[in-house]
């Protein structure tokens, strides 16, 4: 398969601060998830492959061409920035149409495409409202709209699910999968593993400015499953639940917290544990207030995987 994005020893420094270090990666058509905790270098990588930043070292090629100061290539690239910024005095319709005009589409074609994509993302009813009156979710959808309206071959979405409600998230996830099925290349960044899991099986793990791993999502799942998880459960009769959990082989430790209605359980087999927990809750007829995983964020997982913890 041909490479859509190819980087070779790519590095970026902001003064003395490392943004990205020695990244060599090849991205082929389909959906690819760029996963990493906040500040890992995801946005820097995306800005480098969209020509917004100039590499300090190494090179980036998109469709076999250098991307920095190469305007022709942007006919084939759509970019949705993470930043929630717009031209505030424009309506959603004006913004989208003008962004298409900047792709040199004739007026009529720009109108048709803007209308089509606004309908598709359920923004057509609000098209004449000023963007500054849009909700966060609407603005997020509008940013996605401007990235896909010109039907690029490569779509780069920086944290596209931020600010979306569950329904909006599902729609965007479905859209991303559909774009991938059609043969377009979609690079999506996120710091939330389940979001990426819902879109693709191909991921690139990025941490502290370096590509930590790349490949199938099952690989990272396996890595994560070696990481002991702490799960906090708030319910009535916590001691009764603790007594039942002690008998379960996947439970390593149980902690009691100052809150009399909370226990924390450490396990290394998260999925099995959750299955068993559900059964016990039903069996004991417990009133559960919350089940959370205090360390189930990517930073903790990465720290564990690279041996910092």
């Amino acid at each position: 398969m041909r490479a859509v994005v190819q980087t070779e020893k790519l590095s970026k420094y902001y003064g003395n601060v490392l943004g990205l270090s020695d990244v060599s990666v090849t991205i082929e058509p389909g959906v690819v998830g760029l996963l990493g905790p906040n500040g890992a270098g995801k946005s820097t990588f995306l800005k480098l492959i969209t020509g917004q930043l100039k590499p300090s070292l190494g090179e980036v090629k998109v469709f076999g061409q250098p991307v920095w100061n190469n305007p022709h290539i942007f006919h084939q690239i759509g970019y949705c920035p993470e930043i929630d910024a717009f031209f505030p005095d424009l309506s959603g319709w004006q913004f989208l149409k003008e962004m298409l005009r900047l792709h040199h589409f004739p007026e009529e074609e720009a109108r048709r495409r803007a209308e089509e994509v606004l309908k598709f993302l359920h923004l057509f009813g609000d098209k004449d409202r000023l963007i500054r009156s849009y909700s966060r979710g609407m603005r997020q959808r509008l940013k996605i709209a401007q990235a896909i309206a010109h039907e690029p071959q490569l779509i780069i979405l920086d944290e596209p699910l931020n600010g979306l409600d569950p329904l909006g998230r599902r729609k965007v996830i479905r859209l991303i999968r559909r774009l991938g099925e059609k043969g377009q290349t979609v690079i999506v960044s996120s710091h939330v593993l389940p979001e990426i899991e819902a879109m693709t099986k191909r991921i690139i793990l990025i941490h502290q400015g370096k590509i930590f791993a790349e490949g199938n999502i099952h690989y990272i799942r396996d890595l994560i499953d070696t990481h002991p998880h702490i799960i906090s459960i708030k319910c009535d009769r916590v001691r009764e639940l603790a007594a039942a959990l002690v008998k379960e082989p996947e439970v390593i430790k149980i902690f009691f917290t100052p809150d009399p209605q909370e226990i924390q359980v450490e396990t290394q087999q998260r999925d099995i544990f959750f299955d068993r927990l559900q059964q016990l809750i039903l069996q004991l007829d417990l009133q559960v207030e919350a089940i959370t995983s205090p360390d189930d964020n990517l930073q903790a997982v990465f720290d564990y995987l690279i041996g910092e913890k």
Partner: protein
Amino acid sequence: MAIRSLSRQPSGVFWASWRDVFKFYFFLGTHSRRPKLFFLLSLVPLAMAIIFKGSQIIYGYPRFSGLFIYSNMIMMFFLQFLILLLTLFFGTSVCREEVEGKTLPYIVTRPLHKIAFLLGKYTAYTLLVSIMIIFSLTLSFIIMNLDRLGDLSLYKVLLRDGGVLLLGIWCYAALFTFLGVIFKKAIFFGLLFSFGWENIIQYFPGKTQKLAVVHYLKSLLPPLSQEGFPFLLFRLEPTPRGEAILILLGLTFFFLGLSCALFAGKEFIIEA
């Protein structure tokens, strides 16, 4: 939305980029709130003209002719305050508003030649300022000369003043575009230049006054009358007109060229 294969589109050549950027920012300039406020500000000389003329008609004061007041006060207000302020805002906005408004990613990820973007936006914004100024200048001139509108020789003055202001607008806008590309606090440096440097250096004797842009603009105008203002001791030592025009055009192209070269090679870090 139907997902279609990529259709062939017109290439992002320089001219197409310039044209589309120009259209977009001219449209934005007529639809945004801030330019509308500046348009109101550009009407201040018109209000001054109405007050002066009204006062003349009702009270017979000030006693000077309409043309005298226009040339010595209203035109100077345009030249030494208004065009500086408007070009400062619009010129620095060419680059700075995209960085500060964080909209630059939308621009640089489109098939637009960076130099064409800068020139297209500069042209759109400078044309907007030119329209505002010429509109206000013409109305002010007509009001101040209501009693002599049949005198065709008078319109030569209007044409000359309009031309001088246009040269000033395009030159200052180029300079402020340059400041917008190189400085984060371009407005601050622009204010220092406009109301510090320009307003002081022009009154220095000898060749020093030639270091101010306004010196060349004033060289294109007849010397100010000191009638009624005997305390004014500053003396303009004008540059010949042809030379002054060439220098103004040269400065415009110089600052625009420098802005383009820097903008094309510079990366702007947009912080989240």
